């Protein structure tokens, strides 16, 4: 096994043996305290302005946002968006408690299946854990109630996000994840706009392998 030879080579380069225990203690403390570094001032705003900044940044990155008054308005917002885009009223949805309890039956033309996405799904409805205003980024920790494939396989991803979980900087979202979920989930995606590629003549085209459209239904629950 090359582990010892690699570690030995590293230590030879660093001109020392294994770290003395008092230094290892300091490094373990640095990990436990995970200090923040410089945080850009752009997101240091009162919460309503952070929400506005988030929306501006999503739109700048070619996503779209519909703001609704409460969770009960989500099914109508989803149905309206699909109709406006000329998409069929069929979607696969994350089996998340906050989404399952919505009044979907008020929109009988919407056909919703719960679970992970398959290649045939055209539209997915995902639950967003947090929004990061700094760059208009959605934080999506994977898990049984938030399958990762919902972020990837459908042509259109609709993310339901409560305004109260929008934070300014990434660091605040990490702390929220640490306090609410605890151990690092198997998969955490930070998503900023729909899929794209500039590999052909360095010119941007939307919709590479992931969703061509990213639509955020923003629930104004923080007032």
């Amino acid at each position: 096994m090359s582990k010892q030879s690699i570690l030995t080579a590293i230590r030879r380069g660093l001109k020392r043996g294994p770290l003395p225990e008092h230094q290892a203690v300091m490094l373990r403390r640095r990990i436990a305290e995970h200090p923040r570094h410089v945080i850009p001032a752009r997101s240091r705003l009162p919460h309503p302005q952070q929400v506005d900044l988030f929306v501006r940044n999503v739109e700048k990155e070619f996503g779209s946002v519909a703001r609704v008054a409460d969770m009960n308005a989500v099914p109508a917002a989803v149905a309206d968006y699909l109709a406006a885009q000329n998409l069929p009223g069929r979607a696969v949805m994350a089996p998340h408690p906050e989404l399952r309890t919505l009044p979907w039956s008020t929109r009988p033309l919407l056909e919703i299946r719960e679970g992970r996405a398959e290649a045939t799904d055209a539209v997915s409805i995902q639950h967003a854990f947090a929004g990061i205003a700094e760059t208009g980024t959605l934080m999506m920790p994977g898990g049984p109630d938030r399958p990762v494939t919902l972020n990837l396989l459908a042509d259109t991803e609709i993310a339901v996000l409560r305004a109260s979980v929008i934070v300014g900087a990434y660091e605040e979202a990490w702390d929220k994840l640490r306090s609410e979920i605890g151990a690092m989930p198997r998969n955490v995606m930070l998503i900023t706009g729909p899929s794209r590629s500039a590999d052909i003549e360095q010119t941007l085209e939307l919709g590479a392998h992931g969703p061509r459209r990213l639509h955020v239904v923003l629930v104004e629950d923080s007032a």
Partner: protein
Amino acid sequence: MHIATSSAFKKNAHDALGNAGLQKALARSGPSFIARRAAAVAALPEFEELRNTARDIKNHALANLDFYLETYEAKVLESGGKLHWCADAGEARAVVLAICQAANARTVTKGKSMIGEEIAINEHLEQHGIQPIETDLGEYIIQLRQELPSHIIAPAFHLNMEDWESAFRKAHTDLPADRTFNERRDVLIEARTKLRSKFLAADVGITGANFLIAETGSSIIVTNEGNGDLTQTLPRVHIVLASIEKCVPTLEDATSLLRVLARSATGQDFSVYTTFSTGARRPGDLDGPEEYHVVLIDNGRSAMLGTEFQDMLRCIRCAACMNHCPVYGAVGGHAYGWVYPGPMGSVLTPGLIGVDKAGHLPNASTFCGKCESVCPVKIPLPGLMRHWREREFERHLTPGAMRTNMGLWAFLARRPWLYRRATRASTVALGWLGRKKGRFSSLPLVSGWTDGRDLPAPEGDTFFARYARAGRGQ
């Protein structure tokens, strides 16, 4: 294995200057990278401060690399993953092949990985009957054309629309021959459709890693297409290829590095998908791989620690140095002859394949310093290239004519009175010879210059003469 042609840099560069397609691609794409980075930097007042932070984080991680790698390993194992330490490319290839064979893999999808290029994993899998499929759009066409990437974040930087069309027509013979490629979108849709079935059928997915996090045992990939995520989510087995210097302590450290990465690379504030993977599928999960392996590769990195080249291990592979390099801008990436082009390649390649094979690369620089000025982790690239030149000279790898000229110059430089007379005499002579045109299209001994461009003829006096006339420092 890719045969490095770095030792043929002069011929490669000469050919590149005469390659019309390449010159068209360079002229189109070079300036846009520069403009986009400049706009992203201008929009973030803290950018300079963040560069210092990024440099300090990487320095701290490197100074304690053994500790952080062992901490990282413990977390990977704790989260149900496996970690394989590999001293060199051969060990890494063997480990990857063994994992693929144990999974009875027939096809393997791949996210873009420069370390994958470095260890030439595709060729190795093919030789053993396993088909690797590159899924990043740029890597996909590079694989179809059996080339190396010409740029570390834009592998198909050197290609034009007509190249895409002809490669796709040749490869996708099952599609109607009379289909049209009127716009880039047509290429993109065809690739998306072709690759979707590959994603679904693959047994193993291989990705690289932009960073590894000791705190959580996570590997991070950064993509815009989503191909890396499909690669690591759909197959039963996920293999991460990562070199040892990718490890940083915490999520906060990685976050600070991510703030400078996309801005320096594509001029985006943040890439579309920044994904943190930690271990294998957990109870209750509806998707994700059942096996998660990290192949941790040294391949020459540890030997750079403690040397003047340690700074190079800070590199986060953003490509800002090559995007701003006048040499890269003139000859493109393939001229550098191996996996890593541009200024970062000119420093890294001699360290990885030997200065005897790659000695031309650190000489292929005007030392304008632009690379260092845009590097998000402040690597002193021109200084490191200068160190390689010194080593090359010490090992007597420098060509004889150059050593003779250097010796002659040193002789003159140590005798200022003689130096001034000699430069004055040659200035007068060259000025007189070139008095009509003001330039030379050919001159003995300097054909290396005049083959590509004219040499201006001296006008007027030497610097020293003017300085003396101006009355010294007024």
